[in-house]
């Protein structure tokens, strides 16, 4: 479960998040929409403990991130917009390292390969150096890293940005599978279609505020688009 209480975050005196209350329950996929600078990535950073709350609190699986920074990271996996990996190592070697960091022990090679295949990477590709990978392939390694962690919460920062439709669709499928296992998922995106298709709840952020939330089943694509555009127009 991911939760914030009256969360305020400031960067060098500028407010990035203001009195933010958000809650993502197990099995939920919460899609956060918003323009650049709305505070979506800052929120992810707050869940990862990379930014300190000015006021309020951040909880991952019930643990206060400020008080239990390492324990809270144990329960959350993260996939950034650009999964940057060690280019001189292969996909499986990268996964070996990140999975070991996540679990505190090294996983067997067969298990690592199975995770990469599950994420959609071929065995041949898994043994190649990352320097030969496309963005989509690196993203799949990122998914495998998250799968290896087996975390109860998943934080995704625009994970489908730059992916082709087929890869994005596969990715959505993986998210739904994870949610069905009870994982709480928070994902930021600019893609309204992806949010409507994948999310169970959708929130729109602007200037550090959470403006509105929708149930993705109850809201139509047109209504979502209209609401998003209206909020963006107000901002302009």
């Amino acid at each position, binding site marked *: 479960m991911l939760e914030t209480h009256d969360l305020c975050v400031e960067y060098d005196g500028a407010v990035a998040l203001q009195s933010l209350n958000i809650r993502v329950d197990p099995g939920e996929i919460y899609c956060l929409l918003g323009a650049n600078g709305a505070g979506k990535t800052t929120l992810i950073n707050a869940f990862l403990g990379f930014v300190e709350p000015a006021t309020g609190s951040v909880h991952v699986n019930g643990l206060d991130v400020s008080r239990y920074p390492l324990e809270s990271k144990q329960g959350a996996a993260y996939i950034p917009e650009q999964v*940057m990996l060690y280019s001189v190592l292969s996909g499986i070697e990268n996964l070996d390292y990140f999975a070991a960091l996540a679990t505190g022990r090294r996983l067997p090679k067969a298990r690592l390969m199975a995770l990469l295949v599950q994420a959609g990477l071929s065995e041949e590709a898994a043994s190649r150096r990352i320097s030969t990978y496309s963005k989509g392939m690196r993203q799949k390694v990122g998914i495998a890293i998250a799968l290896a962690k087996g975390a109860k919460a998943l934080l995704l920062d625009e994970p489908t940005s730059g992916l082709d439709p087929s890869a994005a669709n596969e990715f959505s499928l993986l998210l739904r599978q994870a949610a069905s296992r009870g994982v709480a998922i928070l994902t930021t995106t600019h893609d309204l279609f992806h949010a409507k298709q994948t999310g169970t709840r959708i929130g729109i952020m602007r200037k550090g505020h959470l403006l509105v939330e929708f149930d993705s089943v109850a809201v139509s694509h047109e209504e979502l688009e209209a609401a998003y555009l209206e909020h963006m127009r107000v901002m302009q």
Partner: protein
Amino acid sequence: MNSLFKHLPLVFRHEWRLLLADRSLWLTLGILCAVLAYGLFNGITATEARTTTQVRLQIQEADAAVRNVDLLRRIFEDKANPEPFANPANPANVGSGLAARYAMMPALPLAPLALGQSDMLPDHYKISYRNKTSFLYDGEIENPWNLMSGRLDAVFVVIYLLPLLIIALSYNVLSVEREQGMMKLVLSNPITLSTLLAGKLLARALPLLAGAALLPIVALLLFFPPARQVDALPQMMGWIALVLAYGLFWFALAAFVNALRTSSANNALLLISAWVVLTLIAPVIVNLAVSTANPAPSRVELATQTRLVTIAGLNRYNELLSTDYRYTTNLETLRPKDGKLDIPERLRAFYLMDRDVDAEISSLLDRFDIQVASQQALVDRFGFVSPAIVAFEGITGLSGNGSRRFQHFKEQIDTFHENWRGYFQPKVLGGQAMTESDYADIPRFVWQEESARQRWTDLAKRLFQLLLLAAILSVLAIVFLRRYRVV
């Protein structure tokens, strides 16, 4: 703490994999090994040359002694004629050079690692009753740091090159992760930044410092037989400890700079600047400060004083010096009679003049020694401003080529010179002829090694200074890492 034990080996292993994959570690180790091998070759060659020279001089000395005794015996048996300027029966000839003995400072087992002053200052002197300036002060008398620059040896590689290799491997360990975007993904896992940094630096420190510390020891054991003595083991441990402590300082500095969260380019600039300041500029500043605070007496003053005293001697002993050279033609006067010998007045005069020179310039010579000792004390006291000074002093001390051991050698020479003169004075002034048994009693120089306690105290002090500096930087690094902004 749990994260440290759990994640440190994982980061360490991963870093090894990275270093091996991009070949940077092999390249760095290759450079280190090649330059160390060259330095060791130089060190072993120079030390063996020193030892060979000493052995050759000992053989010469023994041969000369046998020749002198043999000639003396034949003179006593009327089978040979004495020569006027090389008469083995004449104590003035014998004591002023004919049977002069060498005072030698032997090389220690670790001498090839740090030639130190050995290539600038002699490790042996030919002792006679001539005045000390004629054999002891014909070299440069200056602050020990002026005498340090010499040929490339292992300690040079450790002091100057090792930090550069450490910088090359460590300047961007954190910044590159941030700049290339891996840091957030790495730190989204339950690992602390300090564990990550420690694992990265450990992976680089282990091969580099092991190579720098152990390769010279292995080379010495293989190619320098004196190093195979059991006595050499503690000195080897001392070398390893000093190299590790010095390397640790540079890794701690790299950790601190990485913790500042500047760009890789800035890190490189900061570390290279630190290298320039600590290894090149600080020693020069210490040298200048030490020379200014305790300037050595002028060499011109020594030369002038010696000449003035010599001129005074020439005047004082004018009558003795004015005697003729009848001895060169009248061989009978060169033969000992009833244990007595008619020693030429000129030779007595030379003896007295040399004795007077030493007596009258002794205060000046003492000032040289006092100033060198004072300069060394200042270097010891303020050398901590540069870990290069601390490590160099420690290693040259262990190798036996440091200034302290050289001063110890000179003190023994002073004593031996006095004993030598004390032995010959009654014979020269009393006109006693040398006998075969007198030759057996001529003083010999017996080297007394400096106190082991002094050496180990000195080593412990240097190690403490280096480790203290490393600890301070490590603490600073931890403080800055706590404030480190990942995003």
